[in-house]
C-alpha cells in the first residue's frame, strides 16, 4: 500500500478539523496548556508556543460548514471568510481556544477583532498591528513593543511566562518547520507530479492545529514517501496561483486546477507558515528573541498585499518568484470582495506584463461548489501556455 495516501488522508482530516478536536486533545494531555487562534496571514507562533500555548490558524469553514448565524453579521458585499469564522465561534467550535489574535491584514479582519470583543466579551481578543515602516528603530521598535505587550497579555491570561530559552527553542522549532516547508515547495517546483498541490495544500494546512514538531514530522514523512514512490509526470502547464492568501479556496477548486492541466508550482495558500522567508534564527547571542522575531519580520517578510511595498517595485517579487519556480503563467485567484487581493491584482498584472508573463484571473468564495467555469478557464489558459511555449 502506498505510504502517501494515509499521510494525505491524515493531513486532510487535520486541515479541516473545524471542531478543533486535535486542539482539545492536545490541551487535555497536560495541565495549563492554552490555545490561541489567529486569523490570516501571519502571527508570532513562536511567542505563543514559548508561552505554552498552541497557535491555531483559523482559516474559515470553507465549503464544509453550514452558515446559520454568520450571514446575519455581514452585508452581501463583504467576503465570506468572516461569516464562517463568526459561525465557528457562535456555534461553539472555537471554545477550545483561550483567545484570538487578529493580525492587521485588511479592514474586515481589523473590524472582526472589535466584533469579537462584542460577541464574545469574556474571551481574550487582540488586534495585532504589523509594522508598515521597516526601519528597525521605528517600525521595528514599535513592533517589538507590540510583541512584548502581547506576551504580557498572554501571561495575564494564564500562559507560562516565557524565558529567553523558551523563546529560542520555539524559534528553532518553527525554523525547522519552515525549512521543511521550503523542502516541500522545492520538491513541488522540481517535480510537481510527485508533490501535487492538492496534497501539498492539506499537508501545509494541517499545521494549523498541530504543534510544530508534530507538523514537522508529518512533512518529513511525506517528503520521504514522495521520494520513495515516484509518480509519472504529465504534460501540464506550470502555473503560479496568487491572491488566495486569506479566504481559502475549496480543496475541490485546487483539484479542479490540476485536472484542468495545471501544475501549481507556486501558491499563496495558508501563507502564515512561510510568510518569513528562510528562518528567523539563528538569533545573535544576547539578542532578545522578541527583537529577533520583529527583525525577521522587517527583513524577511514576503512582499504581500497587506504589507506596504517599501522596497523595490510593486510586483517585482512576484516576477522573481515566477521566474524562480519556472511558472509559465499566473492564475490570479481572489476571494470575491477581497480588497487586498483585488486591489493588488492590476498592479501585479502590470508587472507581469512588463516581464511578458501571461496571466488570467477568476474569483471564488470559500464555499463555492461549482467549478465548471474555472475548469474551462484554467484549461484554456494551460493549453495556451503550452502552445506559446512550443511556439
Amino acid at each position: 500500500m502506498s505510504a502517501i495516501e494515509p499521510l494525505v488522508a491524515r493531513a486532510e482530516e487535520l486541515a479541516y478539523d473545524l471542531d478543533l478536536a486535535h486542539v482539545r486533545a492536545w490541551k487535555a494531555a497536560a495541565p495549563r496548556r492554552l490555545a490561541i487562534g489567529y486569523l490570516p496571514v501571519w502571527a508570532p507562533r513562536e511567542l505563543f508556543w514559548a508561552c505554552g500555548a498552541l497557535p491555531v490558524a483559523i482559516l474559515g469553514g470553507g465549503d464544509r460548514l453550514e452558515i446559520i448565524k454568520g450571514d446575519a453579521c455581514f452585508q452581501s458585499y463583504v467576503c465570506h471568510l468572516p461569516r464562517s469564522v463568526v459561525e465557528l465561534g457562535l456555534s461553539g467550535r472555537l471554545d477550545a481556544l483561550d483567545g484570538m489574535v487578529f493580525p492587521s491584514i485588511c479592514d474586515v479582519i481589523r473590524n472582526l477583532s472589535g466584533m469579537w470583543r462584542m460577541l464574545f466579551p469574556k474571551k481574550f481578543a487582540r488586534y495585532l498591528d504589523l509594522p508598515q515602516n521597516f526601519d528597525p528603530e521605528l517600525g521595528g521598535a514599535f513592533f517589538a513593543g507590540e510583541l512584548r505587550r502581547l506576551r504580557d497579555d498572554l501571561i495575564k491570561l494564564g500562559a507560562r511566562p516565557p524565558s529567553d530559552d523558551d523563546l529560542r527553542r520555539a524559534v528553532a522549532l518553527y525554523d525547522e518547520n519552515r525549512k521543511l516547508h521550503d523542502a516541500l515547495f522545492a520538491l513541488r517546483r522540481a517535480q510537481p507530479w510527485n508533490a501535487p498541490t492538492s496534497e501539498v495544500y492539506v499537508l501545509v494546512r494541517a499545521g494549523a492545529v498541530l504543534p510544530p514538531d508534530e507538523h514537522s514530522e508529518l512533512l518529513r514523512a511525506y517528503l520521504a514517501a514522495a521520494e520513495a514512490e515516484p509518480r509519472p509526470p504529465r504534460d501540464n502547464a506550470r502555473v503560479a496561483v496568487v491572491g488566495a492568501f486569506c479566504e481559502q479556496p475549496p480543496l475541490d477548486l485546487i483539484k479542479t486546477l490540476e485536472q484542468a492541466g495545471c501544475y501549481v508550482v507556486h501558491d499563496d495558500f495558508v501563507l502564515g507558515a512561510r510568510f518569513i522567508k528562510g528562518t528567523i534564527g539563528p538569533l545573535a547571542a544576547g539578542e532578545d528573541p522578541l527583537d529577533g522575531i520583529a527583525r525577521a519580520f522587517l527583513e524577511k517578510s514576503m512582499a504581500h498585499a497587506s504589507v506596504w511595498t517599501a522596497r523595490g517595485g510593486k510586483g517585482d517579487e512576484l516576477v522573481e518568484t515566477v521566474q524562480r519556480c519556472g511558472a509559465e503563467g499566473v492564475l490570479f485567484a481572489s476571494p470575491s470582495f477581497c480588497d487586498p487581493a483585488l486591489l493588488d491584482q492590476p498592479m501585479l498584472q502590470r508587472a507581469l506584463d512588463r516581464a511578458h508573463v501571461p496571466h488570467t484571473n477568476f474569483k471564488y468564495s470559500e464555499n463555492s461548489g461549482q467549478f465548471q467555469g474555472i475548469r474551462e478557464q484554467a484549461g484554456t489558459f494551460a493549453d495556451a501556455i503550452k502552445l506559446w511555449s512550443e511556439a
Partner: protein
Amino acid sequence: MSGPPPSRGTSDPQKEPSMLRQKEMIGAHYHKLATAPETGAKSAYTFVPGNLTELLLSFDVLPVLPEINALQSAMRGKSAEYIAKAEKLGQSEDVCTYVKCDYGMMKSGNVGPTGERLPTPDLLLLSYTGCFTFMKWFELLRQEYGAPTVMLHVPYQGDGVATREMRDYVVKQLKRVVIPALEKTSGRKYDEDKLKEHLARSAKAEEDLVAVFESAKHRPSPIDAYFGGVYYIGPIFSAFRGTQDAIEYYQLLRGEIEERMRLGLGPVTPEGPIERERYRLVVEGPPNWTSFREFWRMFSDEGAVVVNSTYTKVGGVYEDGFRHDPARPLESLAEYCLGCYTNLNLPTRAAKIVKYIRDYSADGFLIHSVKSCDSFSAGQLTILRDVESKCGKPGAFIESDLVDPRYFSASNVKNRLESDLQMIEQQRKAEPASCAP
C-alpha cells in the same frame, strides 16, 4: 410615508454667507492647484483621515485630497463614467469606488471639481489612518505618477486606546520620514514656529466647529449634522485646517447657527428650511454622493433631522476635547491621527453612537452602509444590534454606495427610512426608552 403636513418650508434656499465663503475658499484653492505648474507651488496628495495639513502648509505645500475629488466627481455626475473607465483598466467591480473614481478621473485628464486640471503630485503622503485601502490606492498612484511616496503608519486603536507607544511611533515617523520628505519636496527647512502658528489657528477653528455640532442638542436643532454637516466639515477636513480662512469661516458659520438657534429655526436644506422637526436621528456611515440631494430630501420631507453623525468625525474627533496644540506640535498631530473615527475599534464606535443618541436626545438611529468601504461597513450589523440593545431605540440599516450610482436604490432607501420612522412613532406611543450607559 404619509402623515402630517410638510415639515419643510417651500421658500427658495438662501445661500448663507458661510456657504458663499466656503465656495470662494475652495475655488481659490483649486485655482492655486491648477496654476501650480506655472507658479512652481508644490503639492502633496494625501488623505482626509490623519491629514497633516498644518505640517504641509508650514512648508507651503498644497494638499490634494483624492477622496474629496472622488466625492465631488459624484456630486457632479461624473463618477459613473470614471468608475467605468477604471474597471475597463482592470479594477475589480468589488473594490472601493473612491479609488476607482479617482483613478478614472486621473486617466481622463485629472480635471478637478472646479473644471481646472489638478497638478501631478510632487509627493504622495500616505497618512495610513483608519483604512487599509489607502495603502493600495497610493501604491496605484505611485505606479502611475512615479512620485516620491512616504508612508506614515498610524496604529489602529484595536484595544480602544491610543497608547503612548503608538503616539511616540507616529512622532518618530514624522521626524524621521515625513518631515525630511517634505523638506526635500519643498526645498525648505522644517520651521516649527510656523507649524505652531498653524496649529494655534486649527485649535481656534476646532472650537467653533464643536460649538456648531453641539448646537444640535437644542430643540429644534438648527443644523442637520449629517447632510448639512458634510458641508461644515469641508474646510477643516481638507486644505484649510490651520489657516486664517478656516478661522473666519467657522466664526461666520457659528454666528449664523447661533442666530438660527436663537430664532428657534431648524436646518436649511437645498429645498428650503425644515420648519417642523419631527424626528431626531443619529446616522452612522458615509453619505451617498451620487444622489445626495435626493437622499437628504427623503429625510427632510419627513421632518427627520440628523442631530449627530459619525461620518463628520472621519477627519478628526474633537467632541471629547482634543485640540491641535501648538505647545506639543508633533505629539498633537500624532494624537490627532490616532483619534480619527475610522481608527477607533468597533466597541468604541458603538459606544459613541449610544452616547450621541443619549446626549442629543435622538429618537432613533440609522446606519448607512456603503458597499465600497470595509473600514466603515464590516461589522456594522453588530453595531446595529449593540446600539439597539443598549438604547432600545429603533435602528434602520440602509445599503448603497458612496460614488457608484449603480448601488443607490431610492425606493429601498425610502422604504427602510420610513419603517424606521414608523417604529419611532410606535415607540413614542409606548414607554419612552433611555440609553444604558
